[in-house]
């Protein structure tokens, strides 16, 4: 009898605690714009040009007990590129750059997540941009996680990576200082 009581208490505790350590799924909060895909590229080598993609969505799962099981998927509508200049954005959407009529979407699908002791991590995955799929590594740092003031739970990361334009068949010559574009990603996920 005593044994059964103890075991049922243990089971109850286990059932209560288990969800806390299990992988949680998160929807990236693009609806309220707490996620950003920004890029910067050198202009002539003299300054940084900044821009972003305004329209994307995605989700990720993160398992505190087993971070390596984490996954991320993001889809970007390439036509939403915004560098704060309509004529330039028109050019960026055109054939010289993203060719958004032909390639309306860019996607990232993770293939691995390797977390260090300090919780920084490398997120590996396949990025498809302008119809070209390539493996990329994103340096990731956790920003924070916990309950939000409205009854939900959130978790956020930031990440950076660098892409070579010609890797994705973007051949328009912007000069020797502008062959690579840096991405800065800031995502906040709402636990589902």
């Amino acid at each position, binding site marked *: 009898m005593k044994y059964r009581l103890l075991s049922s208490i243990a089971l109850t505790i286990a059932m209560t605690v288990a969800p806390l350590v299990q992988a949680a799924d998160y929807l990236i909060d693009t609806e309220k714009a707490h996620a950003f895909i920004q890029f910067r590229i050198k202009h002539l080598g003299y300054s940084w040009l900044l821009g972003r993609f305004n329209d994307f969505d995605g989700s990720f799962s993160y398992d505190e007990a087993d971070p390596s099981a984490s996954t991320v998927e993001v889809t970007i509508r390439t036509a939403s590129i915004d560098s*704060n*200049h*309509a*004529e330039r*954005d*028109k050019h960026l*959407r055109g054939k010289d750059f993203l060719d958004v009529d032909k390639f309306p979407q860019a996607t990232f699908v993770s293939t691995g997540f390797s977390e260090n002791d300090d919780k920084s991590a490398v997120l590996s995955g396949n990025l498809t941009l302008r119809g070209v799929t390539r493996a990329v590594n994103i340096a990731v740092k956790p920003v924070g996680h916990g309950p939000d003031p409205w009854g939900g739970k959130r978790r956020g990361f930031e990440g950076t990576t660098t892409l070579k334009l010609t890797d994705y068949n973007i051949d328009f*010559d*912007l*000069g020797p200082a502008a062959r690579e574009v840096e991405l800065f990603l800031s995502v906040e996920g709402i636990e589902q």
Partner: protein
Amino acid sequence: MIWRDTQERYGLISIGLHWLIAVAVTGLFVLGLWMVGLGYYHPWYQRAPDIHRSVGVLLFAPMLVHLAWRYWNPRPQTLGSVTERKAAAWMHRLMYALMYLLLLSGYLISTADGRGINVFGLFSVPASISGLHNQADTAGEVHEWLAFTLIALVVLHVLAALKHHLVNRDQTLKRMLSSRC
């Protein structure tokens, strides 16, 4: 000096405006076609579009004067058969419409994000309609199609003038070259 138009001939104002607009439209077309293919480091990469936009804005003035002058002057009789005269009238209306729409669509590209158009550093035309969905891209595509259509009509217009001159041997072309014809 014959400034005003009569029922037989064009005056100097009409002839001047016609050729001014003809040169500007042809020039804008060639410049526009050339500038969109320039590489980023080409010395004209910034200057060519600046000139294209500035000339486009300035062209608005002679185009309005041309239309007004046409309205307040007698119109020289179109020569040719009834069908030819009808076709010519519609051709001219279509060319006017395309030219005005070209100016409008070009303006909408450059002002899509609320920036004005700087005209040769002299003055700036403010944006009025901006932020429409996909404004720069849509206006750009329309601008390109209108331009090619207008130039096709210009070619027909020139061929028609040559036909009048060489086949019909009438005054159509000559009276656009001299107010004494």
